[in-house]
């Protein structure tokens, strides 16, 4: 008997009042294919349910995201850890027209081994200054948890916004 879940790439587009909403889920890998959209339009890309991105998927993403030109604005929503990690590591992942509206920060408790993901949102937790303002994140024993990233690299993209 095989495992129950079958994680597959999916991408849907819906047209809202003033923008297109692209919802991406599953792994961004060799099966990933992004929609043809007007390269100067306003687009929201919801990445909340992306599970991972591999090297082939990273390349596909870069090709797609770099197609957008001014005055287009691509708003990235709910960027998971795997996506934020490549913002800084790979040139072109965060295209010139991209703005990050929200992204995940992982936390870890050395005491309990618990992990938690916290969604950082533009205007509430971060802004143009690149500084983060987060409420304390605590584990089940009430002990503050630590960010489970290397801040210098994970948050480096904030300076590009």
């Amino acid at each position, binding site marked *: 008997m095989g495992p129950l879940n079958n994680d597959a790439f999916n991408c849907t587009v819906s047209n809202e009042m003033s923008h297109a909403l692209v919802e991406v889920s599953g792994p961004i*890998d*060799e099966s990933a294919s992004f929609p043809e959209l007007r390269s100067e339009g306003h687009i929201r890309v919801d990445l909340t349910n992306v*599970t*991972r991105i591999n090297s*082939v998927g990273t390349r596909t993403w870069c090709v797609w995201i770099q197609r957008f030109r001014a005055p287009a604005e691509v708003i990235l929503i709910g960027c998971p850890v*795997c996506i934020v990690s490549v913002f800084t590591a*790979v040139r072109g992942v965060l295209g010139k027209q991209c703005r990050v509206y929200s992204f995940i920060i992982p936390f870890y408790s050395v005491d309990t081994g618990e992990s938690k993901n916290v969604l950082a949102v533009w205007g509430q937790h971060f802004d143009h200054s690149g500084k983060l303002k987060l409420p304390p994140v605590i584990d089940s024993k009430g002990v503050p948890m630590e960010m489970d990233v290397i801040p210098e690299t994970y948050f480096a993209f904030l300076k590009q916004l």
Partner: protein
Amino acid sequence: MNKSVFDEYYMLWPEPSRAQLRPLLQRVPVLHYPKDKKVLTSVAANTYVLIVENAKLGALIDLAHLGFNHIVQKTREDFPQELLAASLMLVKPESFVRNPIPFFMSGFATSKLLKDPDRHLILRFNKAGDKSTLIDWVGAFLERQSDSNAIRDLCLQAADEMITNALFNAPVVLKKKRPFKDLDRTSDITIPSSLSAKLFICFGNGRIVLGCQDHYGSLKKDDVLGRLGEVLNERDNNFKIGSGGAGFGMRNLVHGAANFYTLVKPGKWTLIACGYRLKGLKSNMTAAKHLHFSFG
């Protein structure tokens, strides 16, 4: 005269194990960095285990370029295990590859680990179309290990890169041509079942080891070290991803893991593995990394 692993570190193992380990560990000479820095260029580096303290990753790659195949971090909590694994990789690489799991996990353990399905998983594969099923299996295995939550996605990403590498980059045919290397990664390729690759994952002793072994042995040391050197020398946000994502997968494997192993018998087999501590993502990324680049 060179000292052996046994001469220098016999005290790491309890008395009953020492006699058993002595024949192996006495055959493995050891050097230290930075203490033995002056002699590192005048020895047959590939015959040594190099024990390192307080060196940055870039310096470790330089040491690998000098020919040191097994670079073990003295400050790590798993130093004894790693020293054993490195010694075995040097002296008996075939036996290591035949069944690497006990050596990665507990150093010459009995078959107890291999009889426990909750602690290890071995998957054989030869078709690109099976990749998502393989990753689902790995995901299901990791879900049974509650300690692995923080690194689950990292492991799945590594499995993804390893499977793709084993199917598209590793296979070689006559004249050392790589028939699948430049194919679109959506191609549903199949390699002969007799040359099926093996993905393995094992859990225990505060860590997870994920690895993949193919039967081509085509990975080149210069390619691996060259790629890692490029990655390490690039500044942030400066890594250019190549065709098919070349290079980025390797970068991710090393960057995310606390231990990294490449063991190659040219023309016979390649084994790539990553060791992850069960202490979150940062613990792995910032760990003093054990590195193995054996291309004997």
